[in-house]
């Protein structure tokens, strides 16, 4: 069942002749971890921004849970789909790590007690507690990435879109993230990751698609799970 559906979707950047996506028909379910691979510049990030409604298709239609994405504003899409940018520094703007995580939760209408409890839980899991009062932009790249991911995970969106989530993460933190994603999909939610991290994909992806030349192709499993 497709939570997000691409129907004959094409996309070109303004002033550029070569389309990034052409006649894409693709369904992203609200389950499992869908990994997107493809060469640098093949359009993976563009695809994820279309998925999120940050970019609008130049042809075709994208549906979110049946509704045309074009009829929803970013705030409406954002309640269903959580997005973590390739460059996590771009989405951090609060004075402290704790506020950064609490910001989205407050906007969901949670009580201050609920916000605080949830923020504490997720900071604990991602080992950010000792930085709770630190300025987010003063963290290291790997810590910023953990924070950006944690802030979006806390919101429990139906679908999580993570662009290069393991870049800057050490192996131990990659495992923490992967284990959390397994929890996410166990609660009937879906994850899309864009990644060149083959070890991470091998361990956590449940579906693999490759983007090349503006089109997607499904990649098959090896049949060798261990």
């Amino acid at each position, binding site marked *: 069942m497709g939570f997000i559906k691409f129907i004959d979707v094409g996309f070109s*950047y303004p002033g*550029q002749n070569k389309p990034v996506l052409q006649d894409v028909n693709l369904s992203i379910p609200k389950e499992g971890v869908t*990994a997107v*691979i*493809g*060469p*640098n*510049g*093949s*359009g*993976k*990030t563009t695809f994820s921004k279309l998925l999120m409604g940050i970019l609008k298709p130049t042809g075709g239609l994208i549906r979110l849970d049946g509704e045309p994405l074009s009829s929803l504003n970013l705030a409406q899409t954002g309640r269903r789909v959580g997005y973590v940018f*390739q*460059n996590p*520094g771009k989405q951090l703007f609060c004075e402290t790590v704790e506020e950064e995580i609490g910001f989205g939760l407050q906007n969901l209408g949670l009580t201050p007690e609920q916000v605080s409890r949830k923020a504490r839980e997720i900071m604990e899991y991602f080992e950010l507690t000792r930085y709770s009062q630190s300025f987010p932009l003063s*963290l*290291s*790249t*790997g*810590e910023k990435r*953990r924070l950006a991911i944690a802030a979006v995970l806390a919101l429990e969106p139906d679908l999580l879109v993570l*662009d*290069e989530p*393991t*870049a*800057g*993460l*050490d*192996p*131990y*933190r*990659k*495992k923490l993230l992967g284990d959390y994603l397994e929890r996410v999909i166990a609660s009937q939610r879906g994850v899309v990751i864009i990644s*060149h*991290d*083959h*070890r991470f*994909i*091998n*361990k956590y*992806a449940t579906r*693999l698609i490759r983007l090349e030349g503006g089109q997607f192709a499904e*990649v*098959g*499993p*090896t049949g*060798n*799970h*261990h």
Partner: protein
Amino acid sequence: MSKVSFRVGQGEIVALLGLSGCGKSTLCLCLGGIIPHCLGGEMTGGILVNGKKTRDCPVAQLALEVGLVFQDPDTQLFLPTVEDELAFAPENLCLPVEEVEARVGNVLTILGINDLRYANPKNLSGGQKQLVALGAVLSLDPGILVLDEVMAPLDPESKKRISDAVNALRQRGKTVLVVEHDLEAVSFADRILVLENGRLIKDGQAPDVLGEREFLLRHKLELEDELRIKRWDL
């Protein structure tokens, strides 16, 4: 960082490992003199680059000897075309035009980005920007190259190109410091340094350190189960 001491010889390829936040990028910034010259904080002890004290040497001068490629390429790119980015450093060295052109052409080929020559870096993907940022430093041709986690956003072909480029630099007597988390990505290193909470806890030949499974597992630099699973035909 605290009481970090090490020495790197010319032509050595050194990998720097350690958990996020342990001080790897800070160490890179120290090598380029950005610490203490541009960022705040207090630096004790001293760093010598080719015999010069970084504390006494202007950043502009150190930049000729130490090429830094940061984790976030957006912080390094500012010109309207890829060609301009790659030509910027050699032009500022007042090299002859033919030499500038040769360096630009050479770097485009090494990194496999000839097709991006006239593109605006602003319009490139994250991985492509990373290659251009690296290219801009390669065209400077410094004696010491510092690569701070440049591999993660790159596709397998680009990763291979970079490790080939590093090997070629070694042949030319260049010194390279590579920060990475993926042990496979540093397989070309001669030597490995490990930082933990700002302290140097290991300094050894790469095959020896990579062979110390116990140590790598204990310090969370490697995970047992990640090695075995091969679910996808990648």
